């Protein structure tokens, strides 16, 4: 990925909060990142730090009711989609930006055939005769390595294995040839060998389509395999972002360091984030200063007073910490 690559998605200072009776949950609170054309950006962080909510904010598919994006810009291909109307968003979804969800078991509608569900997506791209659409559906399934696609399109989700369903979900998600694909832990629910297959498939599709992927995961092994750059998220904010190699070899933020240290060995596909001592702060009651302070070994008074600004470490490498360069 060259530095000069064009930006396709630019998220700036995004704040998405839950307004509940007992308080405001600041699940996403000041997230900024850019995604360049054709790259894979990893988004990692502990459970509950706001990764999925960041993704759903970008899709503008927040859970109905209490959640609202209250601040920020989401610039997709030059336009701020937070300013788009719901019907304009429907035009954008599926074609410019799409998403693969975590759980293949529940991502497909159980009462419609695979073919039906693919057709709905394909028809939107270019209305055509049923026969033509069926042909396209078969081709779409073949593209995600589904054997005997002609038979499969008449089947229901429960007749397929988890890995197969996830590939169908992938086929549906990319059927509109989106420029950006968000993959929210797409392999967590699959077993290891199937995971590998799926990741290879995603990578291939990404190369074929030239789409950019925002890849959300818990798993540093997957980051190493899939991503060009990685953003590390903590308590609603990105604390470090840089090329994968640099982050692995020279993590700068104490949180990133702790994360990487907690991964036993960076070989193979394992490498789940194991616990770091302590708890992240409550998203209802975020501290004024650095959010990692309560767990940081390098904490000092100024860390508690104000949130550290973003420090440029390398050309393409930033971190939010007061003590960059001195630890």
């Amino acid at each position, binding site marked *: 990925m060259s530095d000069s690559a064009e930006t396709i998605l630019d998220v700036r200072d995004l704040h998405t909060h839950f307004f509940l009776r007992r308080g405001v949950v600041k699940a996403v609170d000041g997230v900024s990142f850019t995604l360049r054309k054709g790259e894979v950006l990893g988004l990692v962080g502990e459970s509950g730090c706001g990764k999925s909510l960041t993704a759903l904010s970008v*899709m503008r598919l927040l859970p109905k009711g209490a959640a609202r994006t209250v601040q920020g810009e989401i610039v997709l291909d030059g336009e701020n989609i937070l300013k788009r109307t719901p019907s304009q968003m*429907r035009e954008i979804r*599926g074609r410019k930006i*799409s998403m693969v969800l975590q759980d293949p078991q529940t991502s497909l*509608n159980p009462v419609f055939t695979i073919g039906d569900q693919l057709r*709905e*997506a394909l028809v*939107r791209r270019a209305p055509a005769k049923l026969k033509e659409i069926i042909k396209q559906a078969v081709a779409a399934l073949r593209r995600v390595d589904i054997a005997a696609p002609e038979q499969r399109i008449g089947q229901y989700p429960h007749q397929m294995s988890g890995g197969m369903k996830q590939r169908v979900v992938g086929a549906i*998600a990319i059927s509109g040839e989106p420029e950006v694909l968000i993959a929210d832990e797409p392999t967590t629910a699959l077993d290891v060998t199937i995971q590998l297959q799926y990741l290879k498939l995603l990578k291939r599709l990404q190369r074929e389509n030239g789409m950019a992927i925002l890849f959300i995961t818990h798993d540093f092994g997957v980051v190493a395999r899939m991503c060009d750059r990685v953003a590390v998220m903590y308590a609603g904010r990105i604390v470090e972002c840089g090329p994968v190699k640099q982050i692995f070899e020279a993590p700068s933020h104490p949180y990133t360091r702790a994360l990487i240290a907690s991964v036993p060995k960076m070989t193979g596909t394992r490498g789940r984030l194991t616990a770091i001592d302590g708890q992240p702060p409550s998203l209802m009651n975020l501290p004024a200063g650095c959010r990692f302070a309560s767990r940081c070994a390098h904490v000092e008074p100024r860390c508690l007073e104000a949130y550290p600004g973003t420090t440029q470490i390398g050309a393409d490498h930033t971190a939010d910490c007061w003590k960059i360069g001195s630890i």
Partner: protein
Amino acid sequence: MKRFIARRLIQGVVLLFMVATIVFFLGRLTGNPVDLMLPEDATAEDRAALVKTLGLDEPLLDQFVIFVGKAAQGDLGQSIRMKQPAAEAFFNRLPNTLVLIPWALLLGMALGIPLGVLAALNRGGLLDRFAGTVAVLGVAMPSFWLGVLLIFVFSVELGWLPSSRMGGPEHYVLPVITLGTFLVAGFMRITRSAMLEVMESEFVKLARIKGLSETTVIWKHCLRNALIPVLTLWGVFVGNLITGAIVTETVFAWPGIGRLTYEAVIYRDYPLLQAVIILKSILILTINLGVDILYAYVDPRIRLT
């Protein structure tokens, strides 16, 4: 699917046998029918003769065996009051009840399902609260009270609709509303809760990710799934209707099996009552089986296993 149907049929037969047993022995507990059947001035000989023809002098267990044996051949005994086979009386009246049921179901669904969807879409909003009130009213309002109220307003005061007996289409309106109101609430509540659950699911998110319109997402993807639990309750609802018909048909003097049940109780026509209960059970079991088959049609996960 065939095995499923066969299993259900066997279950049905077992259930029917239990119903027959209960009905038979309960019938014997509630007194001697001979006294009811004879005129007050009957002699002891008359009584003895009748006891003999009815087989009431046999040991209870033998009576039961004979009863079950005959029932299995379709002979459910004679109605005391109507002087005709009880089954015949039932089947003469049955069509009158059956013509009400589809309309009541239709009314219940036509109002209940959309109301449930709208309530789910407006969860916690004004519409949801309105629908909730409708639901409480529909369930809390006893059908005899609603029936009497409707008669009072539309027949007595306004004179728009007939208050009793069968006849042209206008005769159906009030009984159908009375029967259907109970179902509106039921359908609404189930649709609402099923929709709320379905709307949270991942496949709905994927439907939106595809860029489908909200109409397609709600009325196709969500509702089709939400209808599965709604359908399972069809059997229960039809059962409710058949049971509920007792009150409604009595209020509206509607000559169906509900009113027949009422008459059998009032006149202590116990062979008729036995027959009515057993035949109603068969009816409800058959409907439930039909619903299960329909259910399998809507939910491919059942159909294809």
